[in-house]
């Protein structure tokens, strides 16, 4: 038996009967605000040699609870396993994952361009208008514009400004609102109870199992 072939075959069997194609997934993680937790979550990805495309971490709507927004391109099977491994960490309260269709998302970008080119070239002004950009700072030597949108939108302005002496560019990680989410306030109250309600350990299988398993 060719060992390599067998191993390749066995790794293929992983997502059997599931959507196999890789696509962008958004993982949302609610955690305690704890030093070292970022590392604990990051190594779940690095151990499996999976690249994090974008990562945002910031305080959530609830005091003391942090929210991670992680973007990666993988199959659903891999993403589900990652989500379970993350949720297993002691200081993680809850993990969700969604496709791009299931969220509203934005990234923010800042562009620094020489003020003189802006002032001189009417074209630039129109460009900015078209891209819905807004000036954050206007100085004698440079001006900083800001725009928010999907990756393609912030990219478009970037390409458009390149010929006009763009000095510096930066883009934030993705942040996303989950269309179906009711927020975390009510959930957290359940977590704080000694005997949690059914909500706390949601089981994504329960509603789907009928399709997979019928007596």
């Amino acid at each position, binding site marked *: 038996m060719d060992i390599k072939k067998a191993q390749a075959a066995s790794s293929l069997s992983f997502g059997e009967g599931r959507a196999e194609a890789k696509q962008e997934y958004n993982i949302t993680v609610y955690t305690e605000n704890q030093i070292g937790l970022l590392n604990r979550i990051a190594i779940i990805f690095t*151990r499996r040699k999976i690249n994090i495309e974008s990562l945002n971490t910031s305080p959530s709507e609830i005091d003391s609870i942090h929210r991670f927004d992680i973007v990666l391109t993988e199959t659903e099977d891999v993403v589900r396993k990652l989500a379970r491994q993350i949720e297993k960490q002691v200081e993680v309260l809850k993990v969700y994952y969604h496709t791009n269709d299931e969220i509203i998302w934005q990234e923010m970008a800042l562009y620094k361009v020489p003020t003189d080119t802006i002032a001189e070239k009417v074209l630039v002004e129109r460009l900015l208008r078209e891209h819905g950009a807004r000036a954050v700072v206007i100085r004698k030597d440079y001006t900083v514009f800001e725009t928010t949108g999907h990756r393609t939108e912030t990219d478009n302005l970037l390409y458009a400004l390149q010929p006009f002496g763009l000095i510096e560019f930066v883009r934030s990680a993705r942040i996303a609102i989950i269309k179906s989410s009711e927020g975390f306030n009510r959930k957290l109250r359940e977590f704080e109870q000694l005997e949690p309600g059914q909500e706390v350990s949601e089981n994504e299988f329960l509603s789907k199992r009928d399709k997979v398993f019928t007596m």
Partner: protein
Amino acid sequence: MEIAQEELLTIVPETKKIKEVSGSVALLEGLVAEGVDTIFGYPGGAIMPIYDALYDYKEKLNHILVRHEQGGIHAGQGYARSSGKVGVVFATSGPGATNLITGLADAQIDSTPLVCITGQVFAHLLGTDAFQETDVINITTPVTKWNYQVTDANEIPEVMAKAFHIAKSGRPGPVLIDITKNAQIQKFNFEGYVKSNHIRSYRPKPIVRNEYIEQAAELINQAKKPFVIWGQGVILGKAEKEFQAFIEKGNLPAAWTILGVGAIPTDHELNVGMLGMHGNYGPNVLTNECDVLIAIGMRFDDRVTGRLDKYAKQAKIIHLDIDPAEIDKNVQTTVPVWGDCKETLPLLTKLIEEKKHTEWLQKFKEYQQKEVKAVIDAELNPTAGEMTMGEVINQLNILTQGEAIIVTDVGQHQMVACRYAKFNKTRSNVTSGGLGTMGFALPAAIGAKFGAQDRTVVAIAGDGGFQMTIQELGTIMQCGIDVKILVLNNRFLGMVRQWQELFNERRYSFVDIQSPDFVKVASAYGIDGKCISEREELQNALKEMLEHKGSYLLEVMVTKENNVFPMVPQGCSVSEIRLK
């Protein structure tokens, strides 16, 4: 009256009376409150304040001075595995802490509850490359269930309570608490130790869903060829009785992973043997013939499943596990039964019907007979040639009657010991299953003995692994514990040699290992011993070892080039198991 009042005062727990104490004292009070009786450790600069406090706790906390921190943590593992309690390990910063890593990784993958305390440099020196400073938290993050750095003594009671709660609840695992030296020294107002039973972000047990129990029961009731495979989860969940009741009601044949062995006695009629690469013939082949596979507290390790895409494809799969991340991780389940098997098994037992499964059980017996003929007979009862590892284990069984705790190292002897050792009681087999840590046996046996002092503990090691932690003979010498050491010497790194023979055209690359005179080494540590190479001596020598007062080393020279069979070669399906 006055005397009575004084008596009352002394009843008040120690912890309530103490006000201003150091972080170190608070830590030790925490250990006492958690019921810790034994600590395995090694002092050093950054943990000196804790050791200074320990000087006054000698009566309550028995500290075992090991010879190397790796030995310390393996002893902690052995203690936890034999006793079912949390193993506690002390080490200093820097090299002390990094020497724990192998044991942490081992405990993490084998779900062993540990609380490890490491000293750390003063908080103001963190990140300055101070003497014996290592970033212990980041190094240990991938190999701990939880870790935390304490820099203020006020945190100690709460952090210790969390540490014990996390280590032992849900799926157990190792916890490491790194305490800076200033926090160990710092005095603070200690208001007592309160055990933790709730951390809001931590759900050790998933909620049991009756839907799944019902679905699982229905599948089992419909099954013509149900097959139970169980792992350490049954032992960790203390659900041995519940498990036995379950398989007995349904007359379900059951096979074990090497960490699950002993949950029911070896001789139980429904115990059909060992799973996996060197497991028994029937359980492996019949995995691919059963119609319902019921996995209980096991994680479908690659050594158990062989090639995954040819693993039990014909079967509906029921997986009982406390860790939701294990469900569907390697094998797609039909019905996941999330929860503690101590709770889920009785629910399931109630719903399953009493069945006979006579024909199906007979199949296991037939395969067993084939294996006895092809492999086991020659291994256990050879009449000529050099001794085999199997016959040593077989003779040991006859003498111990399955009552001993067997602690094994890693390699051929481990597979042979797990295959052939007889166990009447749970928590009798201590082995490094997931990580496969050579050097595990000797220190783990020391710990196992402390965890179960009324039981006989036999460490079985090969000539390779024994030399990896041989320094722990010093620990035995100093603490005077009674551990029997059985070295099966084949003058090779046997398992690697076996693979080189089978898969690398006998290109024996660096597996020819020389050993010192082990009996002399033991004798230098004040441990009696003997080396034998003749079959006629075996029974008496084993008897002498077991009857000896105190520790004893018996070295048995066994066949140099013996292979462990059956074997599922890597990359092959369990049904392609080879008998030779």
